[in-house]
Structures are given as C-alpha cells and as structure tokens.
C-alpha cells in the first residue's frame, strides 16, 4: 500500500522515523507550521522556522525517499501574542507564494480568545487571496464550541468550504463538519484524540468521501506510523485496498492539490541520493551513502 501523512511535524522527528515511515509505504508528508512547545519571542525565529520547513526538512526527507511539503501560518497558541503575530502576518504573503507551500495552516482556536479569532480570520482571508487551502486545528478543550465557531468563521470570511480541512475531529465534532463542504481530518494518536479502531468505526458510519487521516506526530508522545497502522486496521475490518488508497493517499493529496502545487501523480518514491549535500550539513554521519539508480 502507498500512504501519505497529511499532518506531521517532522522537524521534531528522528532519521529512524523517516526510515520506518518509508519502509511502511509512506511516500509523502505535509508538515504544518505549528508551535515549538514554547512560545517564540521574536519574528526572526519564525523566519528561520519557515525557512527550515521549506529548505532543510524537505532535503532531509528526500534523503529517505519521502516527498515533503508544508503549510505556513501562525498557530492559535502564539496568535495571542498580538505584536509578534502582526510581524509574522507581514511575512506571510511572500511565504505563501513558495512552491513547497500547499496550504495556510495550522490556524484556528486554542483558548478561543478574540486575539486568536482575529488572526484566524485574517489568515483565512490570506488563504483566499493566494488561492490556497486552509488547515484548521480544532482545540483540545471545549472542542465542540471551537469546531462550531471555526465553521461559522469559515462562512463569515467566505472562503470556499471545499478549500478547508477541519482537523483533529472526533465522534462529537465530525457530525458538525459532515453538514458542510469542508474536508474531515482525524489525528490518530497513541492515547488521546483518536485510535485506529475508532477511526475505522467512523469510516464505516460516515463513508470515505473527504475523509482524511494523519498522525499529527510531533515532539510529544505520538506515532509517525499511525497512517499505515490505520490502513492495516481498515483492511482487517473489511475495507478494500482501493478504500485504503482513497482515504490514506488520494484524499489528502487531492485536498492539497487545490493549491496547484502538488498532484497524486507527483507523489512517488523519489530516487534516494544521500550523497547530495545541503547547506554544509549532511545527514550522513559516517555511514555508507545509499545511491539508487
């Protein structure tokens, strides 16, 4: 089976993860810009972070045969720092034109504050202006309210619902998104959020259309192999290989393909050339380079 993880924070993962992901059939990933576990204090840190998402990390991924794309945005937690967020907003138009950027995100609510709402709305507008999809993070706390208000803001800003994915859904919030044209994102985590079996149950209840599954793996306890593991659970539950390919490969890519910067046909196993060097750093640490013909 071929897989695509449409939401994973690879900057905080190891080369072992890349190797295991490639071995499990993952051909590509999207890394949404998010927070770094602690709030940034200056705009320069955002610049370097965005540049890493567009430079070093895609290079690192390519060394393991994985296609890497990213989304650019101010996350809801840091949107509460208004002065800093205003500076980041000023940078965004030029980043949103980069070839490797396939959406604005992740944006949305965390504590559901007026500051969060301001930058959420402004970024939805930017997405509209740049013809980019928008990746919406739904909060851990007060999730139903956060989801309802996110959907209301989507309508208010007037961005096409087809261009929006609402992420981290569960049994309570998925039905709210089913009533809209938005895509449905689910993060399968080791303990919280969603498990493979619950995911399979949701697919049985609601079908496969616009359904998307990711690992959302980051610097916390998480599992970068949750997408292929969900594929195994789907097959075990009687879904066809084509169903698995649709939900875990074609759906997420076709959602991001609305950016005009990625296609299903483009996401194949790239030739691995580990001798290619990037910016004075090689991921090779004395091992023998692997070169595929």
């Amino acid at each position, binding site marked *: 089976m071929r897989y695509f993880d449409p939401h994973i924070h690879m900057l905080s993962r190891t080369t072992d993860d890349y190797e295991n992901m490639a071995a499990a059939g993952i051909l590509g990933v999207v890394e949404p810009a998010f927070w770094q576990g602690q709030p940034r204090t200056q705009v320069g840190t955002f610049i370097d972070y965005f540049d890493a998402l*567009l*430079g070093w990390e895609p*290079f690192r991924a390519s060394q393991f045969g994985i296609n890497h794309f990213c989304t650019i945005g101010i996350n809801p937690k840091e949107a509460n720092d208004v002065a800093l967020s205003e500076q980041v907003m*000023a940078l965004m*138009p*030029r*980043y949103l*034109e*980069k*070839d*490797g950027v396939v959406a604005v995100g992740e944006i949305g609510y965390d504590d559901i504050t007026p500051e969060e709402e301001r930058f959420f709305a402004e970024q939805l507008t930017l997405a509209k202006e740049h013809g980019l999809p928008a990746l919406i993070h739904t909060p851990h706390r007060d999730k139903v309210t956060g989801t309802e208000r996110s959907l209301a803001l989507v309508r208010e800003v007037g961005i096409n619902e087809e261009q929006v994915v609402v992420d981290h859904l569960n049994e309570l919030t998925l039905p709210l998104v089913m009533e809209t044209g938005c895509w449905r994102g689910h993060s399968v985590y080791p303990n919280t959020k969603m498990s493979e079996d619950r995911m399979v149950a949701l697919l049985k209840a609601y079908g496969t259309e616009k359904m998307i599954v990711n690992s959302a793996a980051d610097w916390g306890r998480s599992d970068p192999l949750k997408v292929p593991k969900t594929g195994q659970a789907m097959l075990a539950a009687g879904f066809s290989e084509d169903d698995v390919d649709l939900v875990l490969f074609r759906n997420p890519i076709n959602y991001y393909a609305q950016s*005009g*910067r990625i296609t299903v046909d483009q996401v194949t196993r790239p030739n691995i050339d580990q001798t*290619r*060097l*990037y*910016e*004075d*750093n*090689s991921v090779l640490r004395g091992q023998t380079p692997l070169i595929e013909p």
Partner: protein
Amino acid sequence: MSYSEPVAAATHQDALLQALAGSGDAGLVWLRQNLEALQQSAPEAVFAKLAGAHAGARRRLGEALLGALGPELSTACGPLDTRAWGRDAAGRACLLLAALSGGASHAELADALYRSGDEGERTAVVKSLCLLPNPAVALTTARVAARTNSMRLYAAVALDNPYPGQCYDDADFNQLVLKCLFNGLPLNRVIGLQRRANPRLAAMCEDYHDERVAAGRTVPADIWLALAPCASPRGLALACARLASELPEHRRFAAQALVARRDSPEVEAALAERVAEESDAEIRAILAGATRAASADA
C-alpha cells in the same frame, strides 16, 4: 572590476522577455503585470512585491529551457549565455531587474531576495548577479551562496556563470575551483578558469593530487585544467606523465591543459612524443593541432 561599459538593466530585461515570449505564453501576462507594478512601487514597498512574485514565478512561467532562443547577454562580467536557463530563471531575472529601477540599493535588494528564497529562487538569483549594472556590489551574496553544499545551488554559482571569474579575488576563486574538484563539478564549465589560474591554485591542486594519490583514491581527470596553467616544474611533470594515462579522460584533459604550456621545452617535447602514440583520434587531434599551431605561431 568592470569588463565593459555597463549595460542598462532594461536592455537585458527586454532581451529575456523577448526570449520568454518566443518560447510560450505561459505566465507572460502575469509577468508583465508584475514588472509594471515593480517599476511603479515605492522603494520601501518594492521588496515585498519582488519577493512574492519571485517565489511564484516557476509555477506561472514553467521550467522549459530557453534553448536557442536564450540570448547572449553582454554583461559587466562579460558575455552571459542564457540558452541553458529555464523560463523560471529568465522571468525571475526580469523581476529583479525591474525592481532595481525603483531606487533601492542593488546590493541590499539582491541579498534580501537571495536570503528569502528557497533553493530554486536562490539558484535564479546567483545566475542573474552579472546582470546588475555593477555586479561587484553583490559579492557578499555570491560568497554566501558559494558556502552552500546544495550542489544544485553551488553549480549555479560556479558553472556557466561569469560572476566568480570576474568578481572573486584569488582566494575565493581558488576555493571555488577546489570545491568543484571535491564535488565532481566539471571544471571546463568554470568561466574564466584559464585567465584566473594562478600559482597558488596550481599549488593547491598539486596538494590535492598528492592527497588523493596518498589515500589510494582516484584523481579527478579535469584537475589538469586548473593545475597546468601556472604549474610548478613538478606540476607540469605530473601533467605530462598523465598524457600516457590508461584513462582517456586524463589524457584528454592533460593534453588540453598542456597545449597552452608549450612555452616549456619539456612540455613541447612531451606533446610531440605523445602524438605518435595516442590511439584516441580526438585526443590525437588535440595534441597534433597544438603542435601545428605552435609551428604556425613561430
């Protein structure tokens, strides 16, 4: 350093636009709109506009090579061949040139554009540095780019680009040549190598040769292009010995490099001796042509 009279940025821009128009319609309307907007924008607004358009240019214009339509541009660094440029690089150069007309500092604008770019954008910026009215102002940018180990970007600085040959000092130029040797980038595409070769470069190449031999590793065949022009007597002897190498690439590059050193009687003798023995017709022609040319010159 100035090679010839500076050519107006607008002239280069027109020539590239003409080549773009000749090779397809994709993105042309978009490009012209952005060029116009850049020419009209205030100096403080020009960078944001330039950076956005520059980033999105590949998607609009495509990557097809200009090929035969690519003009040879007369730059302050000498002639610049754009036939191997893609439509994206050509369009990005036009955008940079249009932005320069707004009165912003050329060095700052080129550097900011380089720093804000992804790999493709950075490649385009370094390819177009010679098009600046005074290319030397962008030396810092070129030197930063030459520190990269992304070979795609490095090749854009070092190969088919008159910039380093014209604007680098000897220390930087020598490092560039060595880095090409280390990474297997072909020295015959380093523009101005023959003119810029110097005794220090010859000594560095000789050391590199010795290190490779001591480590039991192969010596890059094109090393003779950088080593021979200002070689020490020992360096010349090393090159002459390679005229009889088992490897045709070594024989070819040694012959090519040594024909310019026939001022040395030892080299002249080695070339003349080798003509009779060389089995490869192409290499024999290099050797023979050289000896004929030598007698004609005399």
